[in-house]
Structures are given as C-alpha cells and as structure tokens.
C-alpha cells in the first residue's frame, strides 16, 4: 500500500485506479466489520457501499488529521451504527476466563507446563497456514470482540482510534480485546494439538 499522502492526492484528483486500490485493500475488512455491527449480510453490503460513496464525496473535506484507514473505518462505524441499532451498550459477560480454569491447580498455578511456540523450528507458525484457521476463529468470537480484535490486531489501529470507530470506552475495549485474543490463542493452541 502506498503512503497515505500520495494516495490521498490521487484520490482527490479523481484517480480511478487509486480508488480501486483502496477498495481492493479495504473492502473485505470493512465488510467483515460491518457484518458484525448490523443484522444481515445485505445490510452490511449496503453500509460498505454507502461508506465508499461517503469517501468519494467527502475526500475533499478529509483533513488528514487521522490516517486514511482510520477515517474509512470511522465513516463505516457511523453508518453501521445509524442502521444497526442492535449493538448492546454493555459488555456481555460470556467467557469470564482468559484460560479454562481447569488448566490451573488449586493454587492457581498451571497444572501442566505450557508449550513454547517460538521454539519450534518447523513452519507451524506460517501465516498462510494460519489465515483460514484464524478467520474461522474470528467468526466464533462475539460480534463485539470481533470488532475490536479486527481493528486492533488485523488493521493495527491504536486503542484511541478503535474507541472512536466503535464509540466504546477504553475500559470496555480492553475487556473485549482481552477476551477475544484469549480465545484466539486457545483455538490456536488446541489446533496445534495441545490443550
């Protein structure tokens, strides 16, 4: 992906190819995020299309105070919220533990040693192998956890940026991130044959 500033210049100049590049890069992540915020795939697709229209029409007014990516996700978040109205404002209380309590002894210490993933010299940590597994794992998270994990860990937004996109407090965001990451780790662990 080329630098924001250059891409922004091309977008403002009405460069069609620059726009297609932007869509190619963000269409799927935006669809995934929208899908977790609204009741159906059809509505999610509308929200994403609506976001692109907002981008085309608003690019003149975009001041570049945030990154282009954060701006895109903020537009998306706003549009999804305006049609979604299904997002509960509280953090659901499911899966309170980062790790299954059965993994600890009665003193709260690990009952069995943990495997060191980094010590493995084989290609078990190859990203292309784990992509499909992690995508499926993401789909198993609660919608709110998925939103936060996607924006923080897939898209690399900061905690403040994610707060603005999703309109949630830092505290709630961190709880959702913690539960989401913990669950992804557990799924990776069990897929690797342990746990």
């Amino acid at each position: 992906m080329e630098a924001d500033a250059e891409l922004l210049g091309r977008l403002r100049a009405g460069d069609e190819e620059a726009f297609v590049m932007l869509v190619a890069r963000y269409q799927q992540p935006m669809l995934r995020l929208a899908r977790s915020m609204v009741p159906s795939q059809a509505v999610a697709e509308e929200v994403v299309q609506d976001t692109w229209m907002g981008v085309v029409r608003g690019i003149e007014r975009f001041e570049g105070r945030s990154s282009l990516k954060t701006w895109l996700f903020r537009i998306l978040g706003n549009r999804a919220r305006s049609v979604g109205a299904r997002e509960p404002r509280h953090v659901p209380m499911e899966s309170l533990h980062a790790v299954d309590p059965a993994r600890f002894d009665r003193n709260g210490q690990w009952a069995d040693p943990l495997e060191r993933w980094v010590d493995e010299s084989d290609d078990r940590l190859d990203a292309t192998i784990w992509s499909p597994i992690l995508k499926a794992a993401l789909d198993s998270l609660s919608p709110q956890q998925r939103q936060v994990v996607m924006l923080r860990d897939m898209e690399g937004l900061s905690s403040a940026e994610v707060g603005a996109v999703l309109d949630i407090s830092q505290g709630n965001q961190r709880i959702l991130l913690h539960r989401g990451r913990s669950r992804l780790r557990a799924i990776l662990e069990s897929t690797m044959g342990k746990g």
Partner: protein
Amino acid sequence: MLSLRRRDIVCQQAVELVTDYLDGALSRRDRRRFENHLRACPNCSAYLEQIKITIELTGSIQPEDLTPQARTDIVELYRRWRSE
C-alpha cells in the same frame, strides 16, 4: 517451592493481566507484580509469548482478493458518484 508473599500473584491472575500489560494500562505496582511473576514463571512467560504470536498471526491474515465482478461494480459506482 516458592514461598508466596502476600502480594504475589498466581498464574491464574497473571493471564488476566496480559492485555492490560501489553497496552501499558497496568498501574506501576501491578506492572511490577506481573513482571516479577513472569521472571519466576516459565509457563506464564510462554503464555505471554503465545499471546504475542496470536496477535502477530492475526495481523498477517491474508485478505481475500476483490472478485472481478466486485471490481467492475465498484468502478461503475465510482463513475456515477463522481458525475453526480
């Protein structure tokens, strides 16, 4: 066996602090307790490493390519939006 001081944390508590730790959101005291625990506990060090790898792998998920049809559709929309 380690003799637990009153304010030491155990593994089951440590795993719940990992996200706050990585976000720099722990109080100075909790951060110290967490790091002390980590130094003494190879399992929790391994756990933190696993979480970091999980984050890294999540960040390297390959996005699907745009289908040719989706590309055509969006270009068509783009031209319409620009001309309106």
